[in-house]
């Protein structure tokens, strides 16, 4: 299956508007086209909808994917493992020390009167200290908490810096954040809420703090990129053939893995991704610049 078919298979059936029907469209369109030069005031106008019989009860578990943060602080341990910032009626939770003893987190949450279970799982450097997921066990109602947006770019991932919890929240909340991987440890988070499935949390290789931060890979020759990667001791996991031009409607990189010996140094890199094996990168390559 090509990428588009796989994406459709994954999310196609979850279309929230699948059963949406518009009635009265002609009236709206008449109004729009009649007002030839409207002093365009935005008007609140409602159509009658046939409401879909779908949609949201609430999920008790929301997974958001992880994000990056400056790598582990060097030097003395911060006095606090957590930042619990009180604003108005809520408490904003961020991680100060992503490599702290879990018992310290528990103590600091308990001292703030919150029933929060914090898991720290190994993440690639750009995602250390960022939230990977949250869940509210035992309920179908979404918890009254707010994800705090990323305060900086993390490449291709969305990187919440933490969550905001209402003061006096009695509900149990489980949070998962990224921590530095230990030597020999892969960037793998076991799935949320005991699903038994693991998923890796790895950032965009070119994002800040990731192994290839700041490195330009695209539109450079394979030889040049190999040299830069070797200098960073970052091997190429796989070479993938870029699609020919004009690009076919369907192209699966996984079906076009190249043998390293078949890739000439004079070829060009058309894109790069973090490898599935920790510490490797995958390069899409083509004989000519794209």
């Amino acid at each position, binding site marked *: 299956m090509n*990428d*588009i078919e796989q*994406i*459709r298979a*994954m*999310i*196609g059936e979850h279309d*929230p*508007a699948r059963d*949406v029907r*518009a009635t009265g*469209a*002609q009236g*709206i369109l008449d109004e*729009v*086209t009649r*007002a030839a030069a409207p002093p365009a005031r*935005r*008007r609140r*106008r*409602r159509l009658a909808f046939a*409401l879909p*019989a*779908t*949609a*949201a*009860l*609430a*999920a*008790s*578990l*929301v*997974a*958001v*994917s992880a994000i990056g943060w400056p790598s582990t602080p060097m030097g003395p341990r911060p006095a606090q493992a957590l930042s619990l910032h009180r604003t108005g009626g809520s408490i904003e939770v961020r991680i100060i020390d992503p490599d702290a003893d879990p018992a310290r987190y528990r103590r600091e949450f308990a001292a703030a009167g919150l029933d929060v279970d914090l898991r720290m799982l190994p993440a690639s450097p750009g995602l250390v200290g960022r939230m990977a*997921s949250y869940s509210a*066990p035992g*309920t*179908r109602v*979404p918890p009254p908490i707010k994800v705090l*947006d990323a305060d900086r770019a993390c490449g*291709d*991932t*969305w990187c919440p810096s933490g969550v905001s919890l209402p003061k006096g929240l009695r509900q149990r909340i489980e949070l998962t954040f990224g921590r530095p991987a230990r030597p020999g440890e892969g960037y793998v988070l076991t*799935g949320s*809420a005991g*699903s038994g*499935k*693991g*998923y*890796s949390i790895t950032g965009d290789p070119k994002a800040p703090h990731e192994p290839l931060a700041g490195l330009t890979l695209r539109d450079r020759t394979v030889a040049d990129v190999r040299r830069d990667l070797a200098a960073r001791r970052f091997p190429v996991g796989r070479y993938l053939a*870029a699609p020919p*031009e*004009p*690009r076919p*409607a369907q*192209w699966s990189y996984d079906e076009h893995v190249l043998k390293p010996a078949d890739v000439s140094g004079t070829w060009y890199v*058309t894109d790069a*991704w973090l490898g599935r094996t920790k510490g490797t990168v995958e390069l899409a390559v083509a004989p000519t610049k*794209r």
Partner: protein
Amino acid sequence: MFEEHYEAVLRYAWRRVGATDASDVAAETFRIAWEKRSRCPVDKPLPWLYATARNVTQNLRRRERRREALPLHEDAASETDHAGAVVNREAAIAALNTLKPADRELVLLVSWEGLDLRQAAAVVGITRAAAGMRLHRARDHLRRALAGTPEPAAYEERFS
């Protein structure tokens, strides 16, 4: 000419801004389309209309300082819904919300709007090659994000 595409544009907006604002976005899209109708491709206007709706949606978000995440459609709750299906959709939307907004837009265009690669690339204003690359990346990312979400059965087993 526009009437047959109204529902498609309404759905486009519904998916991105939720039920409350969908009709406003659709109406504004057609107002602009009418003003610029000389530039609208007559044979296949839908990708062009989606690109217009995309601008309207982005303006709405900017104006109201909204985050570019997909709504969870809590406003359309229905008792007839099977809980498992709902949890599935929540998980899918949560996974979609982990994508970069520009990548997510491409994913939605090829899946929920059903465009092909060339049309989706045109709506977003990038080359087909770039769109293919982004979709490849998004596919890997979605697969990981969805694998990290509990199976609905496990969820129901655990909480209900």
